């Protein structure tokens, strides 16, 4: 064993190792199994994800770093890993029929989904800029391919190119920021960076680096004005991948954002050089502005969309804004609110996309609002589930979405950001308008049974059931999630509270 490594490293890295081995297994099975057995691959993938979940059990309650201080095994990482595994499993479950319809080869698809999951897990666990960067790229590269995996489809191609070009561009910005950060501190380890940087260090270079980091990560979480790729890519990508992208990729990028800014750059939350609009200047102020702009632009643009995937893309942009509110608050409570929100958002968003996946039939793409027409008449269960998801996304109690919003806005007010909460509440009031539009379409039934009954595959039904159950359960009994998130946020530590409010 190389120096500095021990067997416990592998013990704690088990989930990642399981995913890696599983990915290779899927690739091998794809070659070995006869064509007719293709469907088995999805179940193998789900089994691998469940196995990784089991391997995650030893990490519970731990708080240590492994692999020569490159990866942390703490509550924060565990929380996100659970989220990624759940999102990946649900994504895989909603895929098989869609892949058959789109004539996509499943082997590489599932392989790439597992690779993306692997990347996300390192983004949550990494405490070193290099680890985070490698995780980010593992995830991003997998998503570039997954987005364009329907090769004969022009929309899928175009989405892939856009995502790839802009993703690489934003990576350039992010890396440039990281290189400056390294130059200023002489380390890529977040803890060292945190301790060696004092507010005001580095003159103009530090804010410049921070801005590049904000832009690079802002791209991944689709914060305005770095969001423009999102609607196009979400629309063009295969729907299950859109779902995974909007949940997994976003959550992983938030994990990385929290790691870098809250754990790595607490000093620059407020650089001590003055204030802007009564707020201490620093990344707190940047994210304040980003949160406001992101929520507002996301919700406004969603109002007039006719394509469900595009609409959900804008809605997901707006949700990134709400989550940013928790990060602006910066307190442990704010961070835990952001975590709670991400988990809740994962279920409702995946559920909504599962309905869109379901709508894809032989010759109907099923991503326009009018394709929802009469859903209540033909599939009341799915329609009611979609209703719950929409209400939850809009923040209506007693669904989980309300809990998320309540907690985020509550944390903001608690930390003194009253106006931010006001803008957030106003935005969520606006957002309900377009969520309700979706509901309206489902309840309109045309006289002729044009949208004749189409089957729901058991796998998609499972996804709907799980997401629906969680959306309702987390709204009525959010306690477990809250405790989990609070413990996880505490393991991250929090930025010192600001004197100024």
């Amino acid at each position, binding site marked *: 064993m190389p120096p500095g490594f021990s067997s416990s490293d592998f013990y704690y890295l088990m989930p990642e190792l399981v995913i890696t081995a599983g990915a290779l297994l899927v690739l091998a099975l794809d070659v070995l199994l006869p064509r007719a057995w293709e469907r088995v691959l999805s179940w193998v993938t789900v089994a691998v994800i469940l196995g990784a979940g089991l391997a995650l059990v030893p990490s519970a309650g731990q708080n240590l770093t492994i692999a020569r201080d490159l990866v942390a095994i703490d509550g924060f990482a565990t929380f996100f890993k659970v989220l990624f595994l759940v999102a990946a499993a649900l994504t895989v479950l909603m895929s098989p029929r869609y892949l058959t319809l789109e004539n996509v080869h499943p082997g590489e698809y599932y392989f790439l989904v597992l690779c993306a999951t692997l990347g996300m897990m390192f983004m949550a666990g990494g405490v070193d800029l290099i680890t985070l960067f490698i995780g980010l790229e593992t995830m991003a590269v997998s998503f570039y391919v997954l987005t364009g995996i329907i090769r004969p489809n022009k929309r899928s191609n175009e989405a892939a190119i*856009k995502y790839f*070009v*802009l993703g690489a*561009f*934003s990576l350039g*910005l992010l890396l440039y920021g990281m290189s400056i950060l390294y130059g200023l501190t002489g380390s890529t380890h977040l803890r060292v960076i945190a301790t060696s940087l004092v507010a005001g260090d580095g003159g*103009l270079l530090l*804010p410049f680096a921070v*801005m*590049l980091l*904000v*832009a690079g990560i*802002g*791209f991944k979480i689709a914060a305005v*004005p*770095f969001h*423009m790729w999102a*609607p*196009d890519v979400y629309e063009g990508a295969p729907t299950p991948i859109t779902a995974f992208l909007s949940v997994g990729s976003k959550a992983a990028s938030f994990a990385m954002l929290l790691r870098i800014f809250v754990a790595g750059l607490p000093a620059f939350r407020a650089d001590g050089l003055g204030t*802007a609009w009564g707020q201490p*200047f620093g990344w707190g102020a940047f994210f304040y502005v980003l949160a406001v702009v992101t929520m507002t*632009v996301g919700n*406004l*643009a*969603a*109002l*007039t*969309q006719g394509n469900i995937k595009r609409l959900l893309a804008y809605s997901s942009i707006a949700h990134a804004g709400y989550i940013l509110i928790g990060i602006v608050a910066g307190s442990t*409570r704010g961070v835990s609110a952001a975590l709670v929100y991400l988990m809740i958002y994962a279920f409702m968003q995946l559920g909504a996309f599962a309905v869109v996946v379901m709508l894809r039939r032989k010759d109907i793409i099923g991503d326009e609002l009018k394709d929802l027409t009469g859903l209540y008449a033909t599939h*009341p269960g799915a329609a*009611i589930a979609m209703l719950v998801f929409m*209400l939850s996304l809009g923040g*209506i*109690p*007693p669904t989980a979405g309300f*809990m998320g919003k*309540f907690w985020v*806005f*509550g944390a903001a*007010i*608690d930390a003194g950001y*009253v106006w931010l*909460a*006001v803008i957030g*509440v*106003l935005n969520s*009031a606006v957002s*309900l*308008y377009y969520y*309700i539009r979706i509901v*309206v379409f489902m*309840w*309109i039934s045309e006289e002729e049974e044009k949208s004749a009954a189409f089957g729901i595959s058991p796998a998609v039904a499972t996804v709907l059931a799980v997401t629906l159950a969680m959306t309702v359960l987390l709204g*009525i*009994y*959010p*306690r477990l999630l*809250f*405790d989990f998130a*609070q413990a996880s946020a505490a393991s991250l530590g929090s930025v010192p509270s600001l004197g100024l409010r």
Partner: protein
Amino acid sequence: MLVLIPLLPFAGFVINAFVGRRLSKTVSGGLACLVMVAAFLVAAITGWTVISGGHAIEQTLFTWLPSGDLQIPFALRVDPLATVMILVVTGIGALIHVYSIGYMHEETDGEYARYFSYLNLFASFMLVLVLGANFPVMFIGWEGVGLCSYLLIGFWFRKKPAADAGKKAFVVNRIGDFGFILGMLLLFASFHTLDFQGVALAAAARAPETATFGLMTAATLLLFLGATGKSAQIPLYVWLPDAMEGPTPVSALIHAATMVTAGVYMIARNAVLFSHAPTTLAVVAGIGVATALMAGTIGLVQNDIKRVLAYSTVSQLGYMFLAMGMGAYAAGIFHLYTHAFFKALLFLGSGAVIHALAGEQDLRNMGGLKKALPVTYWTFLTGAIAIAGVPPLSGFFSKDEILFRTFTGTAVNGWNGRPLLWLIGIVTSLLTATYMFRLVFMAFHGERRHDAPAAPVRPEEEEPGAPVPPLPGPVYSDLPAVDRTHGATHASHAHEGAHLHDAPPSMAIPLIVLAIGSIVAGFIGVPHAIWGSNRIETFLDPSFEVSREAAATEPGAPLVDVPPAAEPHEDTGRELTLMAVSTGIAFAGIGIAMYFWLRNRAASDRMARRFAALHRLLLNKYYVDEIYDAAVVQPIRLLSTSGLWKGVDVGIIDGAVNGVGLSVGAGSRGLRRAQTGSVRTYAASLFLGVVLILGWYLWR
């Protein structure tokens, strides 16, 4: 036990929503009614426990929102205030359910089940709202009734006005909810509790914000914004008149027992908090009385039977808010309670009329229904007398109590506007009696006009020299919507005109029960001045108890009403005088209505049909009317149609809503256009973001 009250209707909802399409109408409708009756029985038992035990019952289901050391439980609580509310909601709600069996019988099985599932869900959410022991639980019900009202108002979603009205209700309510959430969050941040008792205690511990604009004033103003949305007050009342696009029993449910009372209830629930924010109370009273007056004048000229009733609801809610603003919480809740009876009665009665006339809602096409629909007529008349405030019917006692409290209340922030508020209240009272009896006379008395074509003949198109338009309704083209479902299915037999059928038993029984209720409901609140005991106020007092103690801490300015027992004797005389005044006003209103819409209309009808030769002579006789018309009716009509109805309602408020809508839409489309699809633009936007942040940093 407590949880059963909302859970029973919810179970009805679940069954009807999921398997309702496979059930027959008898089963799905019967089930819906059964759960409501059961809920009423549980509520009655609970209520009896509260009344006899004299203390609140609480039930905590589980810890809902954990927040570190602070926990928000999912708790339900019944105190005297909630007792009154659950009895009203389940009792009147059950009657409306029963009525719906008859009213909706023409729907297909699936639609029928869908209707009843919504209705049950609505009741369930309303009960959660009422029973919630803290703000978040109340908010579940608060949002839930908003959602259900949207579903129910837009029940006939194929009808565009219905779908639009549903959407309008939803959007307007969201504006109110915005205030509610913010108020709630503000209280949470500063009091660190959201339990109603906890908030009351925390508020009582602080000095009233008499001259300052502090936290409690801000929070209560935000909460009041929420209340204006739910309870249809200025400036958010616009959805309620449109809400009559839904099935009539739904209007009855929304207007009488649920939904609109939520705002009043919420303020009463937080009586202590509001008492500590006198500025807010002044605003509440002002808005309330302004709404009452405005809605009353508008109600005077409407021709759609349900629209008149809708404005009447807005007006009556204004009274309740006036009471809240005066700190007379018990009086406001008393009025809420009596109003539930007669307004439900009036709406269900109008439903029976519409039902009999195959969906006709235009008053100008009614008339003479007295003989054809005796049950409907007599019950409707009872309701009208009750709302007009004629003693000894229920409306008299509650309205009089509010007016009395207004007159004798305390100065608000040094500004003593009580006499003015009282005067406006009295004028509104006059208007109420007038427009209600105008409705009664136009619909039930006079000649039968319902065989006439649906479109009214515009007066200008009649022969030259025609007398005063027999129908003093305004002539704008806002023709009332026709309930098409009924129109379509009933058309075959209704226009034969010969056999108009009165309400079937399932509709008649609720009408009769409600009529009895409208007569006797007021007796629990007979004031001391006329040798009553005003039991309801004594009963409700504990719910505002802390507020009494809190008020006692501030000498000189008691913020809430003094207990009746301590009332000095000289008030009795004044109270009797005021009572006489309001009784006189009620009769005056009825008299005006009789003069304009009963006596002269009959004459004008006769003249218009015959005697072309005697035209001139009769014309002279009608000069009187024209003078009246020009001097009294026209200005009022002008004020209400073009001034208030067209100007404020359509022009300003709708205009503002549409204006906001338009600019939001434009902004949204602009943002869409910015999404050019060009990668280079996107990259530029990305980089521009960096440059902007950097520029901001440097420029600062």
